């Protein structure tokens, strides 16, 4: 088995790598079935979900983790690992990650194409990817610088911190105590006494309603909603009855049916044997 770079026999083809859940196992527990991976690059690994800033970030850290030469990327192996990671990280639906994955697979396919003569001018299909990776890596270096300088400034306070929008701060008002008191007085005179509503809490009597229903059902076996709730019933009575019926139905003591919308609810004693 040769190295993934020029190995024409890659049984996985362009599909998802087999054993994509491998990252969830302990290191070393994964199998290396049919893998063209170099021996120093372990197939299984545990990802501790770092936040990637994008597909290039992911690819770059992959290259770093696998300790491969950025100028000579074993594309088949890296493509496989990339697919593995986006699946483990559940980045499957992130279009940008898929786009790069597709690009990797295309490069992999181009690498497999037969070349006519070794000396002929042949452009490495990885060249563009390498250029982008280096450019990205260089940008990461600048990010490090900016992060350091940003912290330097963050750790020192200016006399007053301006809002970031750069809006000018309004000058404080010049106001005498007398003016302030006059203003307060004016407001107090204008303001009316607040209207106070007294809310009387009416407690629901669910227990009473339950007793009432039980008594009626024991005697007649069937009843109707209208038997219990009069037309002019108070809201608390209606609510108590509703909760009582629902509670009894839940406990399996009775069955509630309503033949059609807005019809009176029919209450039926539920015999234990019937309950299914």
């Amino acid at each position, binding site marked *: 088995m040769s190295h993934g770079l020029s190995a024409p026999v890659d049984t996985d083809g362009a599909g998802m790598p087999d054993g994509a859940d491998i990252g969830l196992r302990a290191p070393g527990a994964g199998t290396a079935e049919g893998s063209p991976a170099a021996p120093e690059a372990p197939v299984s690994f545990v990802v501790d979900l770092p936040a990637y800033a994008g597909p290039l970030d992911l690819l770059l850290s992959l290259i770093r983790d696998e300790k491969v030469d950025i100028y000579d990327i074993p594309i088949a192996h890296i493509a496989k690992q990339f697919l593995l990671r986006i699946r483990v990280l559940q980045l499957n639906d992130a279009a940008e990650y898929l786009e790069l994955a597709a690009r990797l697979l295309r490069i992999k396919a181009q690498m497999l194409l037969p070349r006519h003569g070794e000396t002929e001018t042949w452009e490495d299909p990885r060249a563009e990817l390498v250029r982008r990776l280096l450019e990205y890596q260089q940008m990461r*270096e600048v990010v490090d610088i900016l992060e350091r300088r940003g912290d330097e400034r963050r750790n020192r*306070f200016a006399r007053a911190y301006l809002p970031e929008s750069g809006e000018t701060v309004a000058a404080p008002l010049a106001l005498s105590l007398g003016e302030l008191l006059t203003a307060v007085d004016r407001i107090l005179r204008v303001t009316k006494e607040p209207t106070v509503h007294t809310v009387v809490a009416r407690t629901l009597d669910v227990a009473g309603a339950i007793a009432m229903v039980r008594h009626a059902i024991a005697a007649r076996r069937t009843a109707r909603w209208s038997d219990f709730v009069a037309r002019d019933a108070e809201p608390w009575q209606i609510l108590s009855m509703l909760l009582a019926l629902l509670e009894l139905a839940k406990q399996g003591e009775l069955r509630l049916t309503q033949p059609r919308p807005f019809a009176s609810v029919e209450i039926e004693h539920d015999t234990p044997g019937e309950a299914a």
Partner: protein
Amino acid sequence: MIPLVKLLEAALFASPRPIPVEELSVLAPDASPAEVASALDTLREHYDVDGHGVELAELGGGWQILTRAEYTEAIERAQLAARPQRLSAAALETLAIIAYRQPIGRTEVEEIRGVAVGSILKSLQERALIDVVGRAEGLGRPLLYGTTSLFLEQFALRHLEELPRADELAIALRPAPQPL
């Protein structure tokens, strides 16, 4: 201290933003630029040598009095002032690209980062770290972005040239090909 130094100190104390040297010169029309520069040096030395809780920093194209970093934690713990939030990695990446390649359009930033940056550009613009500096020639005349003076200020840079040149970075690049 000579009167000019005291005058500059008062002005720097009053301003929440860095003051460019030209604006400091307006304060003292009689003083030559060299005198202003040397007065600034005197003030900085005064803070450094005599042991003050503040220092004079040159950043964002001007001068500013800042508290010394060693007192930041105590000040923040007492809730007298809060450090601004750090930018996200994605925002920093975008900012880094714009700082180096300005004026630059959205698609070129996306080409380098490999992800869409529309909303990040918007929020960086809202934070006044970048701004539209023009329009590119060509199809659709896309907007071009550049960094602002607030960017320099928040990253403690005197000017853009203080960032290392591209070829000074550890991974020197071959010249970037012209974007399409």
